[in-house]
């Protein structure tokens, strides 16, 4: 026969909470949580709700309208056609440069120079490019002076203007992220591969690249999301009525030219879904590759 063990009348609430990791310090999370709720969660949910309140028609009228009008749904392809190649090219450029830079002594100077375009912002960079790449700009004039071309290149107010601007503003971020992933690789791994007879290409192909891929997938996601929301350079350097009518322009026009906030919210939601789909696909692919430790043993 067993008598139930009588527990102490009551364990104080504070002790029970502390056992679950909740104590006074937990309160420090509150400001950050409020910040996220107020500035991210609430606007997002509000936008979602708004997108289902169209000016005319049923709940899904905005979405139906978007996918019925090629002028609207075409912006998805236009934006992807800019953002995907730019991000890919940025990574393709960033990896070899980072491989070289990681052994440099003056790394800090270089990274400082590279951070400048980020701090200047896209508008200033766009203004600069308007002069530099224009028909009377240095770029075309230099090429003409060198005899490489006979008339100025059309690099503004078309696809290439936006492409170049996105490349310039996106590169520092992609590069710095790639460099930090690369610096996380144990240099002894490359040395070990070298002593085993691997030349520099083989070391890259068999050791560095496989260990870097997981990091590059994350870099791609973050760079892509940045490029996908392109707006100022698409307006200033592109052809916002045609080839570079990106999705954010469609949202802008709905909100501030048609004053249809509901439609604009719907476009913003579609934008989010496209980005999420690309990121999810990449992260799924990342799950298939090695993403464990990048050092070669117990350090």
């Amino acid at each position, binding site marked *: 026969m067993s008598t139930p063990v009588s527990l102490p009348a009551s364990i104080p609430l504070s002790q029970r909470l502390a056992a679950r990791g909740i104590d006074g310090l937990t309160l420090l999370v509150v400001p950050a949580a409020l910040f996220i709720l107020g500035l991210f969660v609430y606007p997002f949910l509000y936008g979602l709700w708004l997108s289902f309140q169209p000016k005319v028609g049923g709940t899904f009228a905005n979405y139906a309208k978007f996918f019925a009008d090629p002028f609207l749904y075409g912006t998805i392809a236009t934006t992807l056609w800019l953002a995907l190649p730019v991000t890919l090219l940025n990574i393709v450029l960033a990896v070899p440069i980072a491989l070289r830079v990681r052994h440099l002594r003056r790394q800090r100077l270089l990274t400082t120079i590279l951070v400048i375009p980020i701090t200047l912002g896209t508008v200033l960079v766009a203004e600069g490019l308007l002069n530099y790449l224009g028909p009377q700009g240095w770029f075309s004039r230099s090429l003409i002076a060198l005899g490489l071309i006979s008339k100025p290149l059309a690099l503004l107010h078309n696809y290439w203007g936006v492409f170049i601007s996105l490349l310039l503003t996106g590169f520092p971020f992609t590069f710095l992220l790639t460099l930090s992933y690369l610096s996380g690789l*144990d240099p*002894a*791994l490359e*040395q*070990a*591969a*070298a*002593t*085993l*007879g*691997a*030349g520099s290409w*083989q070391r890259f192909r*068999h*050791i560095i690249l*496989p*260990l870097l891929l997981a990091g590059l997938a994350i870099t791609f996601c973050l760079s892509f999301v940045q490029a996908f929301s392109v707006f100022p350079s698409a307006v200033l350097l592109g052809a916002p009525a045609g080839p570079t009518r990106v999705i954010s322009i469609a949202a802008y026009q709905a909100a501030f030219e048609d004053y249809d906030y509901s439609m604009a919210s719907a476009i913003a939601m579609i934008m989010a879904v496209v980005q999420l789909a690309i990121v999810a696909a990449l992260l799924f692919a990342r799950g298939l590759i*090695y993403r*464990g*430790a*990048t*050092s*070669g*043993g*117990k*350090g």
Partner: protein
Amino acid sequence: MTIHAANFTELKLERLSREFGNLNALRDVNLTIRQGEFIALLGPSGCGKSTTLNILAGLLPATGGGIWLDDKRIDRLRPEERGFGMVFQNYALFPHMSVEDNVGFGLLMRGMSKAERKKRVDEAITMVRLTGHGHKLPGQLSGGQQQRVAIARAIVVEPPLVLMDEPLSNLDAKLRLEMRAEIRRIHNMLGATTIYVTHDQEEALSLADRIVVLKDGVVRQVGTPDELFAHPAYLDVAEFMGFRNRLGGTVTAREGDRVTVALAAGGQMQGRPRGDINVGDTVIVTVRADDMKHAPDGEGFPAKVASSEFRGREFCAFGSAADGSDLAFQSHSPLVAGDQVQVGADPARVLVFPDRMQ
């Protein structure tokens, strides 16, 4: 591949030097290594032993001198052209490759066929006693097992030279002893030539055919373990070989291979002279802690006990001489802090070095 066979007659380091800025990490190192030898590079941290190993592997360029493998100068070759096997201190196993792929990597780089590769890899894995672990990733192995993979990876390509950089320093004491025997077994089995870097004199003494003692980038002494143990040529080598007790004094008599020294701490000791020592010279007398004894009524000098530990057969006492020199010595009876005792040592076990500071 530039070097095919594991066979060579001798590896020669000639006036090998390395400068880092103004620092001479390595100065004029001359060394000849014969095929099949097990060489230990021994010295405290910063002595240049790892620098020597990295220069040999081709991971660090020398700033002076040369390396010759028989008639072939190799110090300008890139690491991938030298074909030496290297075992890194942190093992440097490729974390994304299975044990088999790690071991087979060098063979793959040499363009060996898959079937031949499999055969050699299996052989190497059996040799380091890791059968059954071939499909695991390095992260799934214990430290000792990772160490074995690193060794298998280095030896499977049949390198003329195996370089090991403190390979046991990340293992616990028991595993270290086990792997020590293992490394020597594999060396004997392969007939490989091994250069082994360590700061642990016990490891060097037990493993090596010859030991190279380095200090401040200079070779201090080269010799077999028993030579170095019994006849260290310099005071710093002696200290590294465990001659911990050091006492200052002046030579009062010399008869053949025996000098008598009047100690600064009072009393006197007899010992074997190392180097040119004459009556009247200021000298330093050194003795191992194991050879310094508490001698209740014998010859020697007075010492004051600070503490003593029971070591099974004997007590090991710590204290100081009258001039303040630290002492460690053996005693058959327990001693108490504050005891005034007489200590001395068998003259055959005492080394007397000239005092260079004078």
